[in-house]
């Protein structure tokens, strides 16, 4: 989770990833952030996020992203 937090802060230092729970629904993250985050996740966790996973419920919070990554690693 620390590594993910590092990635997220790197993408958007202005966002409070500890507490935000509607990163997508509230339009906080924009498309370019997602490109950066997805590429960084793929690289750091050796996974491949696919098109079907690009849904708000997987990206609305840091925890949701972490759950998605863990599921892929299983």
């Amino acid at each position: 989770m620390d590594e993910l937090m590092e990635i997220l802060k790197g993408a958007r230092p202005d966002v409070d990833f500890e507490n935000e729970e509607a990163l997508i629904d509230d339009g906080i993250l924009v498309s370019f952030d997602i490109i950066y985050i997805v590429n960084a996740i793929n690289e750091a966790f050796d996974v491949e996020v696919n098109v079907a996973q690009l849904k708000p419920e997987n990206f609305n919070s840091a925890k949701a992203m972490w759950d998605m990554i863990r599921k892929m690693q299983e």
Partner: protein
Amino acid sequence: MNEYNVLSFLESSAEKHPDRVAFKDKDEAIDYNNLLTRSQKIAFVIRKNANLELFEKNKPVAVFIDRNIRSLQLFLAVVYSGNFYVPIDPTLPIDRIQAMLDTLQPVCCISATKRKLPVEADSFDSLLEQSEEIGDDYLESIKKIREFAIDTDPVYAIFTSGTTGVPKSVIVSHRSVIDLVHRFAESFPFPELPVFANQAPFDFDVSVKDIYNSLNLGGTVVIVPKSYFVMPAALFPYLEENNVNVLIWAVSALRIVQNFKLFDACVPDSISLVMFSGEIMPVKCLNYLMDYWKDATFVNLYGPTEITCNCSSYIIKDRLNDTDSIPIGKSFANTEMLLINPDTMQRIRKAGEKGEICVKGSCLALGYYRNSQQTEKAFVQDPEVTAYQDLMYRTGDIGYYDESGNFYYAGRSDHQIKHMGHRIEMGEIETVVNALDEIKMACAVYKESKEMIYLFYSAEAECDDIIIKQIRKYLPSYMLPNKFVYLHTLPMNAHDKIDRKKLAELEDI
């Protein structure tokens, strides 16, 4: 037809195809006939509410936009009212919106969004309701306004980043938009019944091409929800569902297609024309698109907002090698593109030699609204013409042309950057940061290899959090630096200026 007002496009298409859908979003659609009548009626209400006298025209009307067809209806209503529209994104920081309104001093604010606004604005619903109560005398009034119209009247103004810390508003005339639309119709193979998927936000001039090309060709503009570019699982199915065949998109949007390998899930095969602009298209991305849209025509477009969207184009014929650069091509008819040496202001007439790209023609904007100083700096007399006034726009872009006359883009002469589809002046970020009490000196540098904005600053102590908190109040999120680097002092060059080159070279901080 010899138009002198962009509304002629709407009127002629409404006569030919009254029942065809003109604009469509996720929730609603409007056909040409209703679009015509409704925008004329709302125009009447706008004039009435703004208390405009019969002879008054060309006033700014601020339109708070959203990704919906209501925004477009309000734009056309403003034009019918004899004024010009200025799209404003309601999600921008309040202080920035206020600064825009201070520049504009609009005769009225109207809104197509349900978001909370920092100022009072007439809502679309209210305007529509008022327009349904008026009698038929609106037609007479609309006709009168049109009699006073000339093609150098402004049609819209669009804000763009300004070096001095205040956004500049580029104001564009009917003549320029009409010129653009005719150039597009004669230069590119539009399908018989074009359906445009609008990607660009309405406060970006890329969207001007969707709106007016479609009105001219009797096509349909389908507005793609912004969220589809953030979470793109729904993007291609939406294009397919709507039989979209034309994409006039920012390069950054097409890169999303490549980055997320959207073709893995679905290939919308109705696409026949793909045009892109805004920044350099990576050849890898272009080849990816060409692999799947084999029969489509791909066009690289070039030009800043100040010359009304685009001034040159290049139709890509074959697949390119990864190391090739894509030309920005040749200028449109009725447009002249030339190179000057920015130091001597001499014309460059040799293939391969680099110079600043300058543009002449009907495409030139009217300047920056209420900002004669910046206007005079950028819209200047052609130095080779001394006997009469002949303006050219200095783009600040460096370019060259090859033996066949195709132009190539080769960087900037100043510190303006293109970051994720947005045009940003580094100076604007610096001005805002330097205004903070804590800061001694700040410099914003774009690292192209990482596509990130770095902010280097010196202060009594490290204070990233204070800077972030303060500048968020003024800068839109796409302008916020990605990395903050605290330095005891900033390196200076021989001219006693901050050494940007040295900062850019600082390795992986």
